[in-house]
């Protein structure tokens, strides 16, 4: 075609977008900015950011048994666990120290995958900021602990699946535990 036509067509495209940015909605050519603090993107259940620890009911009923699998499998080695010992010095199958360095964590979600006790999960919260890089981003057990209700809120499908699984396992355990009990009354 004639010289200058391509330039003209390009200008028409930008003009069209200029007009649609006023006239149209987000999905058909309108402004696609999400004005962050006021508006938010829709949240996806699968979205993973940083890990947290789940407890049932009260914070002392931690699911974690400090087995250390996640600590070992973490590619960046950002998890540090120390097992609690009771008064006698016997391991209490509970974490005394559970630190995750968020500055090191790369959100891969492997800890969630390998955890055999359904204890560590990836959180959706992404507004994590600290004024200090080294200590500020190391999250300790207290900060990491979140209730199961919170887990159900942020990742409903996974949480209910886990709950069902745990329930089934518990019932199975009970059922296993009961048969020896059943004959006992005699």
């Amino acid at each position, binding site marked *: 075609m004639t*010289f200058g036509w391509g330039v003209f067509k*390009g200008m028409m495209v930008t*003009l069209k*977008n200029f007009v*649609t*940015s006023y006239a149209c909605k987000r999905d058909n*050519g309108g*402004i696609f900015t999400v*004005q962050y603090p006021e508006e938010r993107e829709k949240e996806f259940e699968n979205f993973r950011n940083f890990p947290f620890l789940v407890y049932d009911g009260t914070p002392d009923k931690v699911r974690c048994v400090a087995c250390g699998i996640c600590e070992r499998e973490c590619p960046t080695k950002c998890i540090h666990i120390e097992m609690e010992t009771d008064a006698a010095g016997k391991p209490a199958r509970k974490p005394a120290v559970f630190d995750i360095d968020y500055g090191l964590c790369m959100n891969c979600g492997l800890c969630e995958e390998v955890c055999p006790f359904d204890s560590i999960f990836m959180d959706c919260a992404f507004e994590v900021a600290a004024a200090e890089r080294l200590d500020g981003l190391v999250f300790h057990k207290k900060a990491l602990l979140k209730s199961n209700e919170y887990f159900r809120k942020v990742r409903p499908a996974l949480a209910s699946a886990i709950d069902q699984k745990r329930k089934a396992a518990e019932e199975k355990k009970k059922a296993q535990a009961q048969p020896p009990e059943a004959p006992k009354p005699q």
Partner: protein
Amino acid sequence: MNRILGFFDQIFVSAKAWLLALLGRFLPDWVVVLASIVISGVVILVMGAVIMMYLTLLERKLLGRIQNRYGPNRVGKWGLLQPIADGIKMFTKEDIIPANADKIIHLLAPIVIVVPAFMIFLVVPFGRGMTAANLNIGLLYFIAVSSVTTLPIFMGSWASRNKYSLLGGMRTAAQMISYEVPMTLSVVPVIMMSQSLSTNEIVLAQSGCSGLHWFIFTPWGLAGFIVFFLCATAECNRPPFDLPEAESELVAGFHTEYSGMKFALFYMAEYMNAFTLCGIAATLFLGGWQGPFLPSWAWFFGKTFILICVMIWFRGTFPRFRVDQLMGFAWKFLLPLTLINILVAALWHFLPPVWAWLWSALILVISFFILVKLNINFVPEKRVYTLES
């Protein structure tokens, strides 16, 4: 009705006259003359600064909309305070001078560059009787003063002792000299028709048809306008001719080593140049402040802002030229076209109206196509792509 219109039309002129008359009552004559100059000067200074500030906002807003996003909208309603926030930021920024820089010239360059930018305002006719200095060589003055802009750019690029700056300075020199030639020549038909170099006279020459007898509505005027506008875009280093400060190649070209207020001054000059060049383009080809119904200054500012929006539109759409293509475009395409345009204007002068229309349009179209054929390397190749399995 007409009286109201006239009142609004002359509102600024009468305000100034009233003020001067007030001063004239108890001050000698020469003070009044001085006061007249000072008033015009202050108005221009304030207007230049305000226009620059809000042009940045306008540009960012328009670009944002073109790119389907909001522009600045956080500082004040619709981001109206954004320029002020930017200004405060610029003021408080550290002023960095490179260790090896030529310190005096490094300091002088941004100061010098705003001077011609302000000086051009003198001859821009903002409305009926609203030219700050109605020089009889107004157009020549404009061309001369705008050609001085090269110097401070050189100063900045040389004084920075930076290779990017140096390259940017070289590009500026080449580009500005080249584009001045077709720009000056594209103005010639207008001078021929209005028989004057005074910007005011040129506007008055377009006053027929209730203020719609603009030069752009003639073939030579249209061609001249397009050439002039392209050259003006190149003169004030705006995309697609922004090679001197090409971000992706030269970081920031000649003002790479500038920060803080000095940087802001460079920007100020650039935006004010854009404004004045658009204003002059409106004056020369779009009838200046001529137009029905609205006050004259409203017409002028309306036309100017439309042209500025087109410049911003260019920026939102086009990639940048390469330096050889840029020069080739000026010398091989625009320059012959303007020469032919001068010829066409002469024809227009001598032929009767209908024939003049026909002939000039014909000559321009044919020469356009011939020029395109001669500049075949500007024309995209047609390519057919194969899909193989």
